[in-house]
């Protein structure tokens, strides 16, 4: 057989074919790459956006590899999570936000020997944390899609010991169990998260 053109490139490209563009449901040890505090606008909560990459296991450097392989002009780092800051207004919703926030703080403290939360979120950069990925269903432009994202943080030892619960499907924007993703799904049952969804979530 005659060698075809661009053999080396085609061979390399084939390595990435079929590779999911999303992190599968499961637990991961991650390293924080960047932390950004965003002031809440129009009465919304302040939020901390963390960018991370997988630090251990089969999916190590998943987001860096994905970022490097992305040829789009305005590519975004996909490994992100948003932590809402309590408003301290005594509301029931705020109490839930406080608990959620403390879950992150505890996960950081439990995952990094000697680290204590001191209200300086920028110190999270380079820390390790456990992250549990789960499915989220939503409706985008009338179409139901399912993608994976961080559902909750955990101590890294819990992840390493497989001592965590896989989360249930999270439903947003009117997504329900009768919603079918068959039209929008790719081969692996998921869809690429459109950029506007990524925007809506963390960065």
């Amino acid at each position, binding site marked *: 057989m005659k060698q075809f053109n661009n053999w080396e490139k085609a061979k390399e490209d084939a390595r990435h074919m079929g590779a999911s563009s999303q992190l599968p449901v499961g637990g991961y040890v991650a390293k924080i*790459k*960047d932390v*950004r505090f965003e002031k809440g606008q129009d009465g919304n909560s302040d939020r901390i956006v963390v*960018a991370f990459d997988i630090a251990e296991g089969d999916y190590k450097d998943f987001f860096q590899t994905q*970022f490097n392989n992305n040829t789009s002009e305005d590519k*975004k*780092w996909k490994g992100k999570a948003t932590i809402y800051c309590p408003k301290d207004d005594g509301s029931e919703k705020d109490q839930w936000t406080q608990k959620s926030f403390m879950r992150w703080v505890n996960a950081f403290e439990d995952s990094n020997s000697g680290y204590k939360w001191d209200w300086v979120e920028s110190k999270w950069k380079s820390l390790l944390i456990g992250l549990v990925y789960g499915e989220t269903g939503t409706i985008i432009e009338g179409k139901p899609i399912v993608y994976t994202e961080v559902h909750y943080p955990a101590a890294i030892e819990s992840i390493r010991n497989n001592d965590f619960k896989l989360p249930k499907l999270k439903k947003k924007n009117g997504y329900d169990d009768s919603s079918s993703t068959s039209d929008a799904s790719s081969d692996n049952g998921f869809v690429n998260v459109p950029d506007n969804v990524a925007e809506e979530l963390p*960065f």
Partner: protein
Amino acid sequence: MTNFEIEACLQSMTVLVDPRENPKTDRYEQRVNSLSVPYRRQTLCYGDYTYNFTMPDGMELYPPSVTVSAPVIVERKMNLEELSSCFTQQRDRFQAEFKRASDNNAIIYLLVEDASWEKIIAGHYNTKFKPAAFIASLLGWSARYSIRLIFCKHEVSGKLIKELLYRELKQKLERGDYG
């Protein structure tokens, strides 16, 4: 810079507008409003528009008090009449401005509103500048000063100015021009 620092720099991008851009017109209002990023009027050594942004250390690239010699500028002309006047009555001033930019190795975008090659070739503008001379000047200057020429409708010039500056800034950040 990391890709996260680059993203933060791009998110902080603002536009500097030279004070010679007349603010008392509807078109000006429409233009600066469609930039879709904050803008500030600040003296530029050459050109009408350039970018500014906040560096990772929290400092602005160009503090408010400085006169800016920018590496990328957009020189805007409101129509072919204004452009032809720059090549005729105001040629010396126009040339001096482009030379300053060129001497500083600046990337120059010449954005001419409500213009097209077809209009120039057909002489559809209200001056006595001959089409052949107009084309010769425009292309001659483009070659001499490496001008990137853009024609557009005035309704979209604000959006284009912002996009041009954003793309140039992004390239420079990714190339490491700002550390």
